[in-house]
């Protein structure tokens, strides 16, 4: 289930939010447990997209036990060109089970159908093969591969950008429109 964050989620969030491998694309990176509540506050306030620059963040709650195992965000980065960025994090203990695929698919549907975004993009670490595979599975195209364009935690960075356009997402979504038929009679 995808739903906004509540303050009491901090205990669950603390399990993954401080891990070094998760820090990279967090809305508010946290090195220490005591910073997690602040990050949850920030995320719980991100409940809609009113104006460009706004972010909508939803918690990934596992149906089975109601545990929060990660989050997904949609940031409305540009209004004139209809651009949106997806950001996400998952507790590595729950990665690889398809939870992110489900969550990102739902976010993509919302971005294109509800918010009328024209292009959704995702940035990820060039060495994070899981993320790269996931993006390809979602039908996203690799549009950029930057090498040593920035420093992250004191090391040269490598970054990938994946993107998909509204018309490409609709074409590949599970719900197929009815085929156009020749007019009968």
């Amino acid at each position, binding site marked *: 289930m995808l739903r906004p964050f509540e303050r009491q989620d901090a205990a669950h969030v603390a399990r993954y939010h401080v891990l070094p491998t998760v820090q990279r694309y967090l809305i508010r990176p946290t090195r220490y447990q005591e910073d997690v509540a602040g990050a949850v506050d920030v995320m719980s306030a991100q409940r809609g997209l009113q104006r460009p620059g706004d972010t909508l963040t939803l918690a990934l709650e596992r149906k089975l036990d109601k545990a929060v195992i990660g989050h997904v965000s949609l940031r409305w980065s540009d209004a004139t060109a209809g*651009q949106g960025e997806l950001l996400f994090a998952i507790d590595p203990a729950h990665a690889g089970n398809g939870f992110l695929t489900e969550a990102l698919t739902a976010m993509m549907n919302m971005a294109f159908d509800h918010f009328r975004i024209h292009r959704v993009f995702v940035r990820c670490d060039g060495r994070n093969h899981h993320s790269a595979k996931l993006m390809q599975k979602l039908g996203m195209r690799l549009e950029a591969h*930057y090498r040593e364009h920035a420093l992250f935690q004191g090391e040269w960075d490598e970054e990938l950008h994946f993107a998909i356009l509204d018309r490409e997402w609709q074409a590949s979504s599970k719900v197929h429109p009815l085929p156009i038929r020749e007019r009968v009679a």
Partner: protein
Amino acid sequence: MGFFPDFPIVTPRLILRPFTRGDVDAVFDYRGRRDVAFYLFDGPLSRDEVATAVQQRVVQIGWNEPEDKIVLGAELRETGTLIGELSLIWRSEEARQAEVGWIFHPEYQGRGYATEAAGAMFDLAFRDASIHRIFARCDARNGSSWRLMERLGMRREAHFREHAIFKGGWDEEFIYAVLRREWRDGV
């Protein structure tokens, strides 16, 4: 830490040097053209706009802080004709990044002048300014620009589609880059 190189920079056929107020006519000769402006953010410039632009360029000769530009005119050694301009923008101090750009008069294209001039700018950035990575961008339809980037040994790192609006239509953009250790086998 700033960067204020010595000018002019002399290459086999060109002189790269700061702009002077006397360059307005020569710059208007190419910046006033529709074909030159086609892939630039600005439309064709009027002579007054060129005069203002040249005025700004006169002092763009060094870097005090990131986002500062060095803009140089490329002049033919043989005739003294100004045939284009190159810019080197300091994009990041920490990660030592710079962006390069160029605009050349179409009548002087196809003779390797831009390659020669850009090569000298790369030497300046990598060797004298200790830049780690230089990148350049252009419209995906601007073949003469991205082919020049490839001739310079730059790698296509990005191909963005419909990521922005450019002059009323969807933009398609390339970003090319080269690292210091890849340029002339490491300078």
